[in-house]
């Protein structure tokens, strides 16, 4: 059970569980992590190639893209014991 909880897959989304959306160039888009982790036991890394990322907390991020295109975002949660990398679902973002 603990093993399961320690390795629970992170789930990220835009507002209210949405996993794909559109935004304008330079528009701030919020990404939420909804899976809870003991913050003393994990670190959090958002992967958003091409984006300017602002980390609000481990559970909230702003991303903004300087140019149009299709982008993917994911988040990796790393156990501080460095034994586990937990990779989230992928968000699809179309910048127009």
């Amino acid at each position, binding site marked *: 059970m603990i093993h399961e909880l320690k390795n629970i897959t992170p789930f990220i989304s835009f507002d209210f569980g949405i996993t794909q959306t559109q935004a304008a160039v330079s528009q701030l888009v919020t990404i*939420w992590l909804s899976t809870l982790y*003991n913050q*003393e036991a994990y670190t959090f890394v958002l992967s958003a190639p091409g984006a300017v990322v602002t980390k609000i907390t481990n559970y909230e991020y702003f991303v903004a893209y300087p140019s149009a295109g299709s982008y993917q975002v994911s988040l990796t949660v790393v156990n501080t014991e460095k034994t586990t990398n937990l990779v989230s679902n992928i968000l699809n973002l179309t910048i127009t």
Partner: protein
Amino acid sequence: MSLLLYINGQLADLEPGQVIAQTRQVNDLNSLDNRQASYTNKFNLPKTAKNVKIMQFLTMPGNSSTIPYRENTCSLYSHTGECFVYNGRAVITDGGNAYECVVYDGIIDLYKAIENKTLADLGLSELSHDKEIQTIVSTWVTSNTLPYKYIVADYNGDTTATAQDMLNIDYLIPSARVSYLWKLIFDTYGVTCSGSVFNTQNFKNLWLTFPKSANAAETQTEVFSSNDYLFLPLQPPYNDYNSVFLDYSIAQTNLLANTGNRHLTVTEQGYYSIQISGNFKVTNDVILYYAKNAGAYNLTPQIPAPVVVKDVLHNNQDFSVTLNLYLNDGDSICFFLKKWGNPFSFNDDNQLEVSMVKVNTAVDFPGAFKSFSITDFLKEIVHRFGLTIFKDKYSNHYEFLTLQEVLQTAQHADWSSKFSKKLAENYLYGSYAQRNWLRYAYNDKEANYNDSFIQVNNVNLADGKDVFKSKIYAPEFIPSNIFGITTNVYKFWDREIGEDSEGEKTIKYKPLDARYYLLRAQLGFHSMSLYSDVMPQTQSTAFYYRESYNKLLFQDSVQEYYAPLQKILQNAQLITAEIWLTETDIANLDFKKLVYIEQLGGYYLLNKVNNYVPGKVTTCELVKVQYNDDEVVKAITITAIAGAGGSDGITITYVANYAVGTLVVQGSQNQQTWQNLPYTLYSTNLVALLPAGISGQYYIRILDTTNNISATGYSLMI
């Protein structure tokens, strides 16, 4: 082994060899009903001269000691300097030959600080505002800064104009940001808090409604009313008029000065609604005008820019008009009848009635929130998010953790060398039933559609019990529609259907009180015009915030925050064991750490330390937790949805970490009311048909009815 006890900063005398048994706990998993503090057993304080002085001569003749009634800070140390209790609370009573004392610490400080306090005690000045159209729009524009927001939903008021893309703001209800209230509680009482939950969207986008109607028309103050009138021409010829002032002989009040019997001067700025009705017997048609601040003009033709109130009043015509105005302090208003070029005169039996009310736009959050205690508010958050409160021993910092976070901790304490023996192994959890209900309040007292329960599969337990009864109301079961989008109904008015004298259907909106709802705000785009029945302005907007009930069902809370507890309870092993705990162990006890005991073959949550006495073996309650994933938490997850809908349907890809049973695919526009969708099951996915005619946000979920497991709603934009 002597102990050192400080009460209100003074070292108290203890009997030689005094034993003070300590019980330590943060959250008894035996009972979800409440959260517990640590405490000592009752012990004696001898009535020595020093103790009598500390107690302000309590029990001595003529004393006026306040010690039994006040907060007595208290710290308890071992003779080696280990701190057992730091800044706890001592409750003192008289025990005859000695004083009797019980020491509490842990979350007691927080609960005592907010005891008998309501949300109104927080000040809430930032929530107070005037409900005006521009204020409402500003809550949408500055979405992240204001602590309140007008979230568009069906509050069971008048929404008929929404069909014409008009929104009557009189039937909108403001909501306070829960995170603002939460922070204010901790700031007000000088404590701090932390917790992952408070950074999530589920918490940050959570709003608590103003608890009653905020319709300005229902809270207006009459400032003027008269059916006593004269027609005052002040312009020759006096028999045939070109224009006349409406003139009233009513006396001046503290809200209104009646200057020259015709200029009504208000003493407070604000919105005013003026109703004029009557019937004039005139020889020619006239026009009813009003003018602001025209006191300097004795003759109506001199008044610049008069405004038409009622155009063309015929002889013997019944009329009734309402004029909504914003007036500044000292503004005056007058009414007059006028007809250019065609003089008119009056016959007998004219009728005129004028009334003026000040519209109360003030939204008094502090006054309204008096009915919500801070303790209830704290309980609401703690139960909704399945939180345990951990107080920092040496500061006023409280950490709120879910059981999932506690179980994820990398830290554990190895108590193998301290283990003495197992006393008992129990399988029934103290106060649980088979179904442990989290319940909403409902307008329909018999309803329970948003309730849910924590299941314990043990037929030897009682059928069910309520572990939490929320003060928060659930929205109505049947949703409504605003701007073509399904919306929940948060009832603030009862609708009374009637008929007018001509047989036409009428609806009266009867306001309700003490209705607290939780909801979320979701950005929406729709071109509309905002208006009010009692205020003059209108304003257009292309975007707004509408309600969402995402993850607010208690079913969602159970699934999201109580799954680990539910898992523990399925094979509940409560071990009572004797452990050799040292003073250092007790002083540094950390309930956030798991306990490993080799002799018992596993990891345990420390539930309670009972009656610790230095130098003696201590009885501890330990809850067994499975470390390995031999017992996996069953889950279904929708990983993708593809397809355009229509007759081809949508293809739902899902994963389950167990052998699923009978599946049901459901769809919803509001995540509250779900309907079954026809589907075809393939080896790796499902193809489901969407209902005809839906558009906008839509949610899909899969239920495993055999195992009572559901996938979280997957959001689609259709």
